[in-house]
């Protein structure tokens, strides 16, 4: 069937991808639904189109390309770094716009030079957008979860709180709520009566005794100790929770965190500002900052115009497989996001890869780009 709704610039875009020395891949439109739901969570279920095979397997119409491309990489080419390009239709229920639309993008899997690969992903995305929208000023927003992780670790928060904050990174509302909780000495954890009883018996201070008690209780109540959370899991988390409940962040540390999260400045000024911030606040975050610097240098080397890029410290995605860089590209003065990307070093292992495979990529919203081209043409 001829794809008559394919954007007019699709051919030029594919030519760009070829010049960028990527391997063009296609994936079946009908995909097993499990990996998508597993990675993105149940919330996705309402937005994808699901069906079932005759044997009861959950299937869906491809909602995006990253997961299928990664699964294909794991099956066929693990170990060899490879840059893939794709262009095709995806299917998602959206508040506005059609629920079938085109996406294209590049996934760069397995390149150990992460600063260089990050810079190349941003540079490539800027390049292909600039080619579609000549004369338009692009606007790139860049965030980096690894800097945030380094800052909260350096603030000396216990592990449980670090995990909570990292998990909320990118979700402004949730993050602010957690910071509020950390600052408010009135808020404390809720503990059941059983925990109080155990505390009086002194069982809580001794992990082995607590584990034994939990195992006995599970045995007695008919709960198998090996299919869900084990007695050891529960004992450890209980300890972590008691730490969570008693941790208060002093005003100074909270101010440091809020100051960090408020950073929103041109990328060219970000390295100096972050170093000055770390020095002033006495935070040891040298590792994360030197990587940040390396990426800024690599971006300059890749020829990306630094004046178009802003660093926003609070910018992230609340999905657990994003680990470092995230970025978005639009046109100056317009709200539409035309390209989005980031580093997802954890995804391939979650999808079943045996070894660690670093990964970075971006995708382009072709329908929005088409509208942006039309708007630019109309304005002339």
């Amino acid at each position, binding site marked *: 069937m001829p794809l008559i709704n394919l954007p007019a610039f699709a051919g030029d875009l594919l030519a760009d991808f070829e010049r960028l020395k990527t391997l063009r891949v296609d994936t079946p439109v009908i995909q097993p639904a499990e990996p998508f739901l597993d990675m993105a969570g*149940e919330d996705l279920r309402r937005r994808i189109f699901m069906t079932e095979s005759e044997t009861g397997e959950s299937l869906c119409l491809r909602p995006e390309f990253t997961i299928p491309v990664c699964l294909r990489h794991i099956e066929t080419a693990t170990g060899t770094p490879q840059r893939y390009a794709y262009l095709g239709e995806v299917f998602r229920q959206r508040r506005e716009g059609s629920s079938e639309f085109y996406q294209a993008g590049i996934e760069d899997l397995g390149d150990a030079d992460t600063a260089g690969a990050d810079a190349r992903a941003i540079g490539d995305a800027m390049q292909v957008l600039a080619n579609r929208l000549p004369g338009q000023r692009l606007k790139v927003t860049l965030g980096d979860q690894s800097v945030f992780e380094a800052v909260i670790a350096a603030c000396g928060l216990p592990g*449980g709180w670090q995990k*909570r904050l990292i998990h909320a990174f990118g979700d402004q509302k949730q993050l602010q709520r957690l910071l509020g909780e950390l600052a408010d000495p009135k808020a404390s954890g809720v503990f059941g009566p059983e925990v109080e009883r155990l505390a009086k018996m002194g069982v809580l201070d001794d992990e082995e005794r607590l584990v034994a008690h939990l195992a006995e209780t599970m045995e007695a109540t008919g709960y198998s100790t090996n299919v869900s959370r084990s007695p050891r899991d529960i004992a450890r988390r209980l300890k972590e929770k008691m730490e969570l409940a008693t941790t208060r962040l002093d005003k100074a540390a909270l101010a440091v965190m809020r100051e960090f999260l408020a950073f929103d400045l041109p990328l060219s000024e970000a390295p100096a500002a972050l170093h000055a911030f770390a020095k002033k606040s006495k935070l040891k975050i040298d590792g994360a900052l030197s990587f940040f610097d390396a990426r800024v240098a690599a971006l300059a080397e890749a020829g990306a115009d630094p004046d178009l890029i802003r660093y926003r410290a609070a910018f992230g995605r*609340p999905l*657990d497989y994003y680990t470092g860089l995230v970025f978005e590209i639009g046109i100056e003065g317009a709200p539409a996001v035309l390209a989005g990307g980031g580093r997802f070093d954890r995804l391939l292992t979650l999808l079943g890869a045996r070894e660690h495979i670093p990964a970075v990529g971006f995708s382009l919203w072709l329908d929005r780009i088409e509208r942006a081209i039309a708007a630019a043409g109309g304005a002339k």
Partner: protein
Amino acid sequence: MTITIALPSKGRMKDDASAIFERAGMRIVAVGNDRSYRGRVEGWDDVEVAFLSASEISREVGSGAVDFGVTGEDLVREGIADADARVEFAARLGFGHADVVVAVPEVWYDVDTMADLGDVAADFRASHGRRLAIATKYWRLTQQFFSGSHGIQLYRIVESLGATEGAPASGSADIIVDITSTGSTLKANHLKILSDGVILRSEACLVRARMAAHEGNPTIDRIISSVRAAL
């Protein structure tokens, strides 16, 4: 225009609903014999009654196939997307009380709030190789509560159409979202409700489909005010 009211076709719900309508001056009589699934209201010629199962009632009111229905709020909110825009909860009827709750094994001493559960869910994949599994028949309510109200994304729903309370002990799920009225089944299965884990306090409601044709229809207003006066 004939107004159709859908009522539960059997059990306590049917009797309780009939009793309220009787007190409201709307005595319901079956058309034909007692087993008939059609009825009428004595003295209300422009009203007819359809006896349906409780979950069908929420669907029919949601699609506007009937004008009114008596059914549990849980079924309406679970069965209809954006329920408040499509139906009006015209009266809460004071029977069929039950709460939709999040319950976890009692032995999870470290989990008493949704925030605790969020921590556990975030870590689950790393330590168990799979997401936290929730057994429930309430897909929509679970998603709204976990994702919308508590920012918890990382879990999987395992559909359970009966004996949901047994799922954690049998190992087919880690926790449950289910309906409970006295809590005794939860207790018997060694489950506890999280302190902020009540998703919905449900009861039987008179639910009206929001339809343009209802505007200014005196029978619609009369039905609602009669039922409200009987409570």
